[in-house]
């Protein structure tokens, strides 16, 4: 068993790094764009919030695989080509942005408007209200669903294998393609994805504990 795992690990190692890199890029970029979009959804004027609403509804209602192929094969027809790796990362990040925006919107809206009123009453500006009143409370409600979304992004990154990018999934398939022995490889692949995602959810629990304070 251990000998088997050790024997195939060199072939999976590079793929694992690609999976981690793709997931990391997608999570980081969608966190920034998603939270900004979420704030825009809640506080933006109509010309900010409507486009975000339309974007978010369309992206969340489109299968991810369709979006990936659209960016890989559709954009080059218009003269824009990010390459397969870039296209796949952009597609995943665009998709995740829509989800994170909704998570952020929910987290912000769940903070009672009395908090905003209180902030206004003591003369805080909009930025200060966000920074000191709303966000510290919203973060706690944002974290659990966001970690779910991150785990989803890690699993969703397996779709880049269809674009010919050798991530963990394609690396597993490459070994199967040589040995014609699928079962142990699928189990090993599943175990590796599980280890990544389980350590994410452990991190999540620690983060939640860290932010579960109430400042007196």
């Amino acid at each position, binding site marked *: 068993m251990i000998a088997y795992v050790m024997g195939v690990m060199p072939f999976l190692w590079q793929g694992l790094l690609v999976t981690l890199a793709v997931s990391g890029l997608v999570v980081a970029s969608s966190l920034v764009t998603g939270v900004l979009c979420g704030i825009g959804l809640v506080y933006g004027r109509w010309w900010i919030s409507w486009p975000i609403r339309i974007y978010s509804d369309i992206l969340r209602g489109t299968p991810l695989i369709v979006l990936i192929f659209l960016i890989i094969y559709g954009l080059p027809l218009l003269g824009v080509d990010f390459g397969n790796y870039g296209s796949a990362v952009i597609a995943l990040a665009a998709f995740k942005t829509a989800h994170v925006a909704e998570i952020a919107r929910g987290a912000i809206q769940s903070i009672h408007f009395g908090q905003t009123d209180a902030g206004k009453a003591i003369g805080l500006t909009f930025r200060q209200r966000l920074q000191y009143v709303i966000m510290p409370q919203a973060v706690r409600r944002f974290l659990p669903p966001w970690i779910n979304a991150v785990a989803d992004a890690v699993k969703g990154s397996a779709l880049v294998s269809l674009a010919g*990018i050798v991530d963990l999934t394609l690396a597993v398939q490459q070994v199967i393609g040589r040995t014609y022995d699928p079962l142990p490889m699928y189990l090993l692949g599943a175990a590796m994805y599980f280890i990544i995602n389980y350590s994410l959810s452990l991190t999540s629990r620690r983060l939640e504990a860290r932010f579960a304070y109430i400042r007196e």
Partner: protein
Amino acid sequence: MSERPRETSARRDFLKIGGLGLAAGIAAAGTLNAQKAAAQSAPASVLRTVLSRGKLIVGTGSTNAPWHFENDKGELTGMDIAVARILAAGLFGAGRDAKEDLSKIEFVKQDPASRIPNITTGKVDIVIQFMTVSPARAQLVAFSRPYYVEGVAILTSSKGKFKTHKELIDAGRNAKASVLQNVDADQLVARGLPQAQVMQLDTQANAIQALDSGRSDAAVIDLSTVGWLVKRNPDKYLDSGFHYDTQLYSAAMRQGDPDWLQWVDTCLNVAMHGHQTQIYDAAFEEFFASQPPRRVPGFPKI
């Protein structure tokens, strides 16, 4: 009142400007079309692009032995890769050793579903990925001459009850055959084993897995895969000896580039029938465990 005429004339001027714009637009469109036509009448062939680039961009896969897969050292190899090597050797005059040829190729790994899109969007110069020639596909891409005729064969296990095609036929309904799920998978099995029970599975690897675990007595799979498995595991697998159904495997290119297509065909003809058959023959023996027929001088059989 004196304002009126001026207003009218201003409006007329505006219309005139509009008319001028329209005329200019039509003229511009005319030149554009002419430019386009000129570009279409003498397109730059991929052949020239590849030669000046010094590298051939080949679309292929990495998950199907013996066609395109990673060997124990993690290097891409297989019959498709050998064909790419033949082209690189022909293009850049190498051919002395595999490393030198392969250094002139950039492989773009792709899913089989991406074979045609990657050609039409120009992401690759050529696709060499066990692509079956069909009239429907030939409407979208240009196919080279075939470099292999794939068939169907019946793999059996050395531990199984039935080993040869005759034993399987004699077993009748008692024989179970696993096969890759497909619209005509039942008929496919029936053409080889008319009475056998059919077990359809989602991948070819799982069809073989069923044979390993004893859930089926025979796996109906590609002839090339049978050759590969029997060569790799002679004490585990057997070729039951019956081969049937044919399909042509060709390289595929963009349409509308006769120079490139003609060059690829010429290069493959020389590599399969001419004086430079070393790479093809070595790959044929390595991946299919058999040898191409001896070439006979005299009347050309191609």
